[in-house]
């Protein structure tokens, strides 16, 4: 399945958002997620199925003013 992760094209075997985070090495990291511009809370990652063409955003804490 082809999806976009943080703006980059990714070929993935993950079928859920939780599996994608494992693939990305972010299963236990402090990150938040959105799919197709909608926030997906941590509690919903296991059940959130991914579809071809999905646009996933994975964000972490960063410097800010």
């Amino acid at each position, binding site marked *: 399945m082809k999806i976009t992760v943080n*703006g980059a094209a990714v070929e993935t075997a993950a079928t859920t958002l939780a599996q994608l985070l494992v693939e990305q090495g972010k299963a236990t990291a402090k990150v*938040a997620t959105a799919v197709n511009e909608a926030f997906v809370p941590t509690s919903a990652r296991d059940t959130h199925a991914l579809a071809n063409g999905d646009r996933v955003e994975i964000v972490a*804490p960063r410097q800010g003013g």
Partner: protein
Amino acid sequence: MRKFYGVELTSPLMLGTSQYPSPAVLAEAFRRSGASVATVSVRREAGGDTAGQDFWALIEQLGVAILPNTAGCHSVKEAVTTAHMARELFDTTWIKLEVIGHGDSLQPDPFNTLEAARILCEDGFEVFPYCTEDLVLCERLVEAGCEVLMPWGAPIGTGLGLNNIFGLRALRAQFPDIPLVIDAGLGLPSQAAHAMELGYDAVLLNTAVAKAGDPAAMADAFGKAVVAGRLAYAADPMEPRDMAAPSTPVLGQAIL
């Protein structure tokens, strides 16, 4: 002292965490300034990148309140989704709502800011809106549920100080019970002191400290300036006048 959504801040200084020469300098700047709040953002992180994780480990050690922002957002949808991600990531309902409307000045978009504020307040966020000193916009933001207002002093990163003192004074008078924060545009501690002398409750700044030659020393200076400004406001300053008035008694002066 006015509270920020029920929280009394130990210092009226809110400090950004961006643009420091190193994490160690950032930590030293916070320590010396006594800042009570750190602003942070959320940014992309995937694959082997761990910059965000490392940054968070540093910020956690500061022992200050966390105020995540929605910096860089232009639309209501972007800002609302970013706020939701920030709420989960930082485990706080506080959000510095920044919805930019103008590319060169980074002036907030008043219409989208108001719409996003309404949505976020209804969803249980405690919104700190980055706004201008426009009385009507601020009135609408308060009606939407904002219990704090954060007008700019000048455009972000300019260091120009307080560009509209009359407007900022009018805002203070208009909202006697709302905590007001000067957010953005400050370049010098004297400007921060001035904001506090106008009766503002806090100042939020980043570039003025981070881009100083000695950020930790400048942070120290800002920390002292806001305390001095707050004391001066509470001490009820004298009214300025146009004509000179001798301070030394005229009575008793020798005729020579």
